[in-house]
C-alpha cells in the first residue's frame, strides 16, 4: 500500500514535470514564425498555436510553398499537428479569345483592301478571308497588312506571287 502510494506520487510528479517540460504555445508560435521568416518560400504564412496545434493562415505563392510551410511547421518541437489553411492565388485567367469581325464587316474591309489590286480576288466565309488570283511580290506585304488588320479568324492565301 505504502509502496504503491509512493509510486503514484512519483508518477504524478513525473507527469506534472513532463507537462511542464513541453514548450509553451507562445514559444512554439515564435519558433514557427522564425522559421517562416528564414525561408522566402514561406513568405505570407503565419501560424497560431493552441494546445500544440498549429494553424497556418495567409496567402503563399503556390502549392509548393504551401507544402513547404506545412512541413516547416511540423518540424518545430512541440507541434502536435498542423492545420493548413494557407491559400494560393488563383491561376491567371487564360488570354481572351481574339475578336473576329462579322462577315459583313470583313466583306466591306476586303473590298477596300483589294481595291488597288485588281488581279486579287477575295472572298469571306465564316470569318475566314480567302485570297486568290495574283499579286506582285512588292505589294504582298501591303495587302497582307490590310487584311490582317480587319480582324479575320484566318487568312487563306492562295495568291500566285509574281
Amino acid at each position, binding site marked *: 500500500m505504502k509502496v504503491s502510494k509512493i509510486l503514484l506520487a512519483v508518477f504524478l510528479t513525473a507527469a506534472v514535470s513532463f507537462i511542464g517540460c513541453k514548450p509553451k504555445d507562445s514559444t512554439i508560435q515564435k519558433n514557427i514564425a522564425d522559421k517562416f521568416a528564414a525561408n522566402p518560400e514561406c513568405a505570407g504564412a503565419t501560424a497560431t498555436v493552441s494546445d500544440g496545434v498549429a494553424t497556418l493562415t495567409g496567402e503563399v505563392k503556390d502549392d509548393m510553398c504551401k507544402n513547404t510551410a506545412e512541413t516547416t511547421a511540423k518540424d518545430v518541437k512541440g507541434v502536435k499537428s498542423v492545420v493548413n489553411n494557407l491559400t494560393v492565388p488563383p491561376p491567371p485567367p487564360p488570354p481572351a479569345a*481574339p475578336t473576329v469581325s462579322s462577315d459583313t464587316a470583313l466583306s466591306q474591309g476586303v473590298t*477596300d*483592301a483589294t481595291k488597288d489590286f485588281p488581279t486579287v480576288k477575295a472572298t469571306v466565309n465564316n470569318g475566314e478571308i480567302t485570297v486568290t488570283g495574283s499579286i506582285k511580290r512588292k505589294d504582298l506585304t501591303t495587302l497582307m497588312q490590310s487584311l490582317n488588320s480587319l480582324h479575320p*479568324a484566318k487568312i487563306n*492565301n492562295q495568291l500566285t*506571287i509574281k
Partner: protein
Amino acid sequence: MSALQDKYKQLIDAANAAGISNLQVSEQGNVLHISGDAPTGAAKDQLWEIYGKIDPDYRAGNLILDIDVAASAGTKAKVTTDSTALNIRKGPGTDQPIVGKAAHGEIVTLQNKTNEQWWLIKTDTGVEGYAYAQYLSLQ
C-alpha cells in the same frame, strides 16, 4: 508553350521588346492571333519583317498579325502610295465619294483614327476626309 507560339516565338519576343501596348497573344482554331498597338510605324514594320522571314509568302494561314500604330490627332503622316495620289473620301469606305487627293510623298495631318483602316486626315491645302491608312506612314 504551344507549337504555334514556338513557331512564332521570335515575333512574340520582338513584340514584347518593341513595347507593343495592349499586346495580346491568343489561339483560336489553330490560328495564333497577335495584336496590339505599336509605339511607332517602324516598330510595326520590324514585326512584319520578322513575320516575312518566318513565312515569306504569308501562306501558312496560322497567324493573324494585327498591329496598329498608336497616334494622336495632329500627328503628321506621309503618303506612301506606290506612285499614284491617295484618294481622300467623304466617308470611311471605297464606296464613298472622293473629295480630294493627296500626292505621293505629301505630308498630311491626322485628325483622328476612325478605325484601323480609315483615318480622317487634312492636307495642307485644307482638304479634309478619309484616307486608307495602309498608305499613310506616321512621321
